[in-house]
């Protein structure tokens, strides 16, 4: 289904663009409505036929991936869900990919959130991914959810010296001292990697400024596309890598599929799926820019 759609759409769009190119070279004006038709097709066909393209992780995403990949088994990875439902479509694919990757590498995963709205999203992730896809992982031994505490940067200020000053128990009400995964864990400084997902406040930037940088703890992040340009300046020194928007999520997913082709053969990849129409649309826009320039140079030559 997908491949037929791919062939049809490529054929259609490709031939159409070539036709437009010929028109342009002949110096004819291209009706803007033709451009609209192409964009319409480029966006709707991949949506209907679920066409996607394999992404290639860019360095800034690869740095996050191979950090998690190369940590020794059993390393401690903290995932902070700093977002709410409105940002979820863009960043949830990232957090899901992080969870899958970290648990596959048998890292110990510590869930928390600085946003109150993140609590239910952590719970969903644990129910729908951890419990379903990793049934052998045990709550309290392989992963733990310590939930939400109000205070934003204040929380970070405290847990960088002591978790227990802020969190007496995990979300199930069990004292942290009785949770095996917290044996020997005092503060954020005992973590091997901090990952914050979410681009609002508090978010990746606060994790860098109040936890990662002062504690010298490796920090990575994922955020919505609008906030990415504000975070790039921290890369690569304070922020070891960043997933920006749905594109970043798609790159991570494809890297995951490349490295673990068997394990994640059936993994849902919402990021890659959402990038399908985007990629095609971007290619069409770029093709139009190229055709526009050819048309421009051809007509200019003719005038001379």
């Amino acid at each position, binding site marked *: 289904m997908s491949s037929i759609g791919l062939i049809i759409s490529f054929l259609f769009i490709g031939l159409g663009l070539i036709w437009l190119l010929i028109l342009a070279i002949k110096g004819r004006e291209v009706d803007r409505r033709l451009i609209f038709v192409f964009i319409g097709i480029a966006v709707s066909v991949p949506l209907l036929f679920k066409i996607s393209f394999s992404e290639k992780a860019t360095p800034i995403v690869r740095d996050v991936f191979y950090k998690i990949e190369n940590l020794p088994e059993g390393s401690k990875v903290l995932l902070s869900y700093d977002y709410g439902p409105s940002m979820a479509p863009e960043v949830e694919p990232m957090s899901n990919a992080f969870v899958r990757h970290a648990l596959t590498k048998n890292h110990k995963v510590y869930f928390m959130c600085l946003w109150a709205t993140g609590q239910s999203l952590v719970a969903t992730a644990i129910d729908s991914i951890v419990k379903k896809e990793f049934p052998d992982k045990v709550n309290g031994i392989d992963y733990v959810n310590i939930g939400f505490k109000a205070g934003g940067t204040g929380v970070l200020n405290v847990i960088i010296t002591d978790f227990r000053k802020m969190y007496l128990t995990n979300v199930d009400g069990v004292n942290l001292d009785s949770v095996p995964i917290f044996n020997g864990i005092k503060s954020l400084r005992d973590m091997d990697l901090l990952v914050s997902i979410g681009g609002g406040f508090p978010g990746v930037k606060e994790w860098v400024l109040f936890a990662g940088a002062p504690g010298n703890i490796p920090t990575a992040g994922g955020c919505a596309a609008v906030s990415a340009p504000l975070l790039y300046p921290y890369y690569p020194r304070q922020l070891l890598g960043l997933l920006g928007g749905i594109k970043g999520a798609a790159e991570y997913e494809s890297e995951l599929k490349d490295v673990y082709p068997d394990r994640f053969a059936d993994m849902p990849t919402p990021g890659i799926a959402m990038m399908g129409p985007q990629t095609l649309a971007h290619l069409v*826009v770029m093709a139009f*820019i190229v055709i526009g320039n050819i048309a421009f140079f051809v007509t200019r030559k003719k005038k001379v």
Partner: protein
Amino acid sequence: MKKQVPLTITFIVGVVLVLSVFFPPVETLGEDFSLFFDIIAVFAFFLGGGNLIRVHTDRISKKKKDWGFSMITIGGFLIMLAAGLFKLWNPGDISADVAATGSLFQLMYDWMFNPLGATMYSLLAFYVASASYRAFRAKNRDATILLVAAFVILLGRTPLGMYATEWIPESFSLLQIPNLAIWIMTSPNLAGQRAIMIGIALGVVSMSLRLILGVERTHLGTDNE
């Protein structure tokens, strides 16, 4: 004379609000102003809404072109008004939230207002494409820079950028399209944004002073009515 009083009001209010920043007891005057403005805006709406009704009833009564659509506009306006003022179909009583779930007001918002607005907004996807086809042409050096910056960023947003420049060795990794795109966003782009923002700030200061000092008075209209 009819201009002197307004100019004095502008001067006094402007100076007071500029200085209020420096005096803690009155530092929230700006917030009070926005409250006043909100109330003034309601009164002004009677003029605007009145104008809307007048324009369309005029069209209907004179049977001008498309007068049928004017009837629809007025009809929509009145139905929405009634739905909101009398809280029609509202599950609660008159003190309930005007946009409570199930109220006619909310249903009209969900079924009509929202899809119309969202679709109008989404037309941008098409216009972005047609604008880039027309505008991004290497006509001169300025336009070429615009074109190249846009093209690099666009390329960086697709897998193509990575596939095409993967071969570039690590020591020149800045030239890989994704890195180049990040660099453009954080360096030249940032510089341009800053220049624009500082310029805007000075423009606003100068414009505000012209208004407060009454050098600029076009908006106050005419003396001789």
